[in-house]
């Protein structure tokens, strides 16, 4: 579900085939309105999930979201750190 036959995360395939992504990327220009709309979709999904799943399941989802966000944050900090030392 998450990985391809080589064991590599297939997230980019999921992103490119996602209807929201297709719609935003269609004209090759990303507007502030499109970012706002995508952000609203994420918030709506979180509310939906919160109402639908058990507390145990929600803890798992939250763990994944937080760990992924930590990775994204530290990776970007690391990149900026490298730029400063160059």
């Amino acid at each position, binding site marked *: 579900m998450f990985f391809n036959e080589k064991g590599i*995360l297939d997230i*980019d395939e999921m992103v490119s085939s996602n209807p929201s992504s297709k719609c935003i990327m269609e004209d090759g220009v990303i507007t502030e309105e499109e970012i706002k709309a995508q952000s609203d979709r994420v918030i709506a999904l979180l509310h939906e999930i919160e109402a639908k799943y058990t507390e145990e399941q929600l803890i798992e989802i939250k763990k994944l979201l937080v760990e992924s966000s930590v990775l994204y944050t530290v990776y970007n900090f690391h990149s900026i750190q490298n730029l400063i030392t160059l």
Partner: protein
Amino acid sequence: MGTFSKKKILYGSSSLIPTMANHIQEQFQNEGFEVAMDALSSGGYDISITKGGFFKAVLGMKTALKVTLIPQGCNIHFEAGVGIWGQQAIPTVISMLFFWPVLITQIWGMVEQSKLDDKALEIAQDVIMMNHHGETSTTTSVGSKFCTECGTKNTETANFCCGCGKPL
């Protein structure tokens, strides 16, 4: 060794960088890789190495082994990592995907397993070695030797250094 890149200082003149870049390009091309080179304003080179079926494409862009050779003082800074084909590895803020760090870590694992980073490093080191041997043979052919204490050039027949007086 880095977690998702390999960095090394090569003790050789930065004037060797273009030769190193050419050798890396040539040898990887001979093994069926697609190679692109960009000369940087710093005097360095940015080399992209990729092969279909080996490097995963991300959102329609080819990923590649990125080798950068940058002058650092009298030496050369070698760095090998994973990046996007044709895009300069520096600046390195490439984060078009939330899971980009996961992808590059996984692709880097494959690069390390295939020892492609080691291969690029070996080619660069070979250029330094070849150049060193070239210098030695030139020195011998003109009949002179260098003092191991102070580096002064002396005639081949000299028993003592004309610079510091130490036995040669």
